[in-house]
């Protein structure tokens, strides 16, 4: 073997969406993979390595799925640029591995023809070959390989079949054709797309015999799942189950994490003498890490549902069912998933807007995502509702407190739809981009692949959110701790700190919406994350540990707050951008300070107006 054999090879995986590309990537690289971002763009970069039988290392890059090199979304642009070798900071691949669903070849054949034009060595992996065989689909592999001018390997990624052969083929192909330069490529016009289809059709006719036992299951299942009435009812049931899971299954785990972090804080407090360092570690860092960690169970459960729905093929159906409803508000059918995620936390919601092709559609979705009632609002809502809303039963069955809670959720959803409608009507007039989407065949999600995706998304959430939230928690700790109260001070310590000063300073502004100075002060640490406001209220009302003693705090608030002030505080929290982490993630995702600024300004304006209306109206009605 020469030196060439020892120098590592680079290949890129390209394929249509739903071709099992990620499963093949997992089968190839196992756990030796790394998820990061491409330089300058917020597209996930997944790379792994595999060692060929010859001992050579092969770097495998998993590129976003696409139907064509004529890219439309940022994801697809990455695929095009990587294939052409024009992606900044990336070494051009030595060969392209095109992954195809063997049962659905027509569109991928056209993609292969496009890839051939680029001129890089190509290997075709015919994935899901077991399903093709079961259906009695006959493919003349030799003939097809000869006609497309690329070797073909059949694979079953989920069962790790054909993987060794594929690696050997990649090894051989990259050795034969070392150092190729991509040819000039330009986007095909309508005539050329037609020609390519004709050629793909000819290849199909010549080398593929239609299945003897075609898949009829998908058609039957769709008859129910896409039914105008039953389909929506089932979607609703799935959503209810998902919510149930996110909010009840996660509770024991969240309590455990919470108790663990509190316990850790206690231990550290024992080990380190009273003073600044202890306060920084316990109240700043440990509390900060805890505030991120505590949401992890909810986010993992949410991601588990989303991954299973995606892998099974149902997600496209959900987008189909929701498109008209979302479209009425100027949103894309695919915006459904990010908005759904935002019920747990706006951060994964904003991160998952990457599936939306059009930039405007994506920005609109990002801007309204924080209006969905995230789980960090729940502690605030629970506390205030418990304090100011009487525990009455109305209409015989409904608890008044429950109805208010429901009203707050509804207010979030309706305002999100309303804001997006306004954005599409006035900011970016015109329709959203065409909604065109393949409805893939239903498949049973593969447990290994689901677990791997879940782990990766969890890691991404922790590193992104952690990197933003942690420093902010330390900042908020600083603001709430310094300067110290003067000797002989009688009020709570926070009152003398920077946070207290800011709170007192903005209080006159907040007087028209019925906020007293304690509420104003609590808003400052509450910027870190919404639920922190609960702890902050506990501090200003000097109730001690407010999180474990909400009963005491609730009783205190019930004495001190009027109904109008309480409702106004709730209305404020429906809209207020009380979460710097979300703003930070929006900055990351849009690569600009403009959009987080726009978001902050419009949300705080809405919050003020809503709280003003609610307060003045309640006072006028005698609730002051």
């Amino acid at each position: 073997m020469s030196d060439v054999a020892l120098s590592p090879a680079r290949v890129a995986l390209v394929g249509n969406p739903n071709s099992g590309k990620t499963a093949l990537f997992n089968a190839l690289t196992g756990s030796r993979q790394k998820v990061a971002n491409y330089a300058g763009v917020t597209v996930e970069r997944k790379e792994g390595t595999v060692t060929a039988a010859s001992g050579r290392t092969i770097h495998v890059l998993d590129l976003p799925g696409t139907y064509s090199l004529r890219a439309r979304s940022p994801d697809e642009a990455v695929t095009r640029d990587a294939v052409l070798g024009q992606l900044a900071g990336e070494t051009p691949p030595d060969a392209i591995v095109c992954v195809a669903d063997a049962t659905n070849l027509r569109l991928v054949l056209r993609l292969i023809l496009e890839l051939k034009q680029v001129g890089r060595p190509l290997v075709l992996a015919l994935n899901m070959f077991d399903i093709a065989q079961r259906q009695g689909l006959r493919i003349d592999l030799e003939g097809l390989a000869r006609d497309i001018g690329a070797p073909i390997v059949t694979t079953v990624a989920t069962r790790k079949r054909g993987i060794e052969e594929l690696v050997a083929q990649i090894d051989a192909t990259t050795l034969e054709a070392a150092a190729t330069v991509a040819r000039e490529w330009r986007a095909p016009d309508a005539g050329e797309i037609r020609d390519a289809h004709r050629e793909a059709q000819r290849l199909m006719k010549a080398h593929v015999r239609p299945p003897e036992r075609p898949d009829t299951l998908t058609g039957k299942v769709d008859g129910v799942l896409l039914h105008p009435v039953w389909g929506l009812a089932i979607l609703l049931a799935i959503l209810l189950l998902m919510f149930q899971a996110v909010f009840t299954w996660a509770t024991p785990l969240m309590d455990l994490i919470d108790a663990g972090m509190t316990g850790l804080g206690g231990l550290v407090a024992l080990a380190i003498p009273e003073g600044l360092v202890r306060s920084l570690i316990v109240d700043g860092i440990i509390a900060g890490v805890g505030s991120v960690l505590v949401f992890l169970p909810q986010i993992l459960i949410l991601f588990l549902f989303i991954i299973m729905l995606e892998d099974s093929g149902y997600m496209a159906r959900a987008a189909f069912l929701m498109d008209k409803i979302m479209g009425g508000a100027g949103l894309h059918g695919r915006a459904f998933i990010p908005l759904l995620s935002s019920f747990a936390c706006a951060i994964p919601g904003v991160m998952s807007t990457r599936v939306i092709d059009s930039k405007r559609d994506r920005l609109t979705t990002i801007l309204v995502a924080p209006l969905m009632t995230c789980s960090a609002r729940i502690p605030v809502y629970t506390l205030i509702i418990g304090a100011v809303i009487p525990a009455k039963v109305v209409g015989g069955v409904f608890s008044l407190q429950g109805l208010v809670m429901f009203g707050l959720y509804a207010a979030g959803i309706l305002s999100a739809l309303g804001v997006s409608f306004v954005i599409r009507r006035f900011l970016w007039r015109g329709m959203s981009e065409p909604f065109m989407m393949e409805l893939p065949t239903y498949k049973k999600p593969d447990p290994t692949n689901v677990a791997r995706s879940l782990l990766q998304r969890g890691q991404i959430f922790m590193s992104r959110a952690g990197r933003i939230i942690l420093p902010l928690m330390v900042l908020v700790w600083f603001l709430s701790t310094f300067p110290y109260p003067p000797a002989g001070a009688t009020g709570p310590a926070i009152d003398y700190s920077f946070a207290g000063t800011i709170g007192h300073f903005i209080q006159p502004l907040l007087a028209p919406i019925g906020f007293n100075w304690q509420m104003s002060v609590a808003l400052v640490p509450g910027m870190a994350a919404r639920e922190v406001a609960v702890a902050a209220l506990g501090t200003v009302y000097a109730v001690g540990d407010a999180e474990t003693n909400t009963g005491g705090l609730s009783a205190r608030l019930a004495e001190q707050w009027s109904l109008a002030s309480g409702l106004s505080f709730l209305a404020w929290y429906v809209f207020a951008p009380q979460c710097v982490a979300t703003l930070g993630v929006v900055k990351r995702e849009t690569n600009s300070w403009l959009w987080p600024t726009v978001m902050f300004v419009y949300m705080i304006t809405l919050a003020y107006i809503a709280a003003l209306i609610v307060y003045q109206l309640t006072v006028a009605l005698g609730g002051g």
Partner: protein
Amino acid sequence: MNNLSIDRVEIAESIPEVGITLRLSDASVGDRGVIIDVRADDDGKDHGVDIEELQRRLLEFGFVEGARVEVIHEGAIGHDPIAVRLDDMRVALRRRDAGDVIILLDRP
């Protein structure tokens, strides 16, 4: 899968009175036929992209002359969007974007 489509188009073009043609945007569930034209006609509607780009996207998804098409599902509100079986795959799209796909219905 069906490979008789190409021949069909030729027949339809030579003696167009043999069948009913309609826009995919006007088709109902159960309508099936073959695509005989994918145009780039400006229908005055806003598609979010220009009409040539819409045509290229339709073509790319396989809405191409000769392809078999059948409307299999439609949404609850305003019968929109629609899901069609397009050769051997299933594709969802909005009616407003489907106006330039002309189909020749199969004779019953």
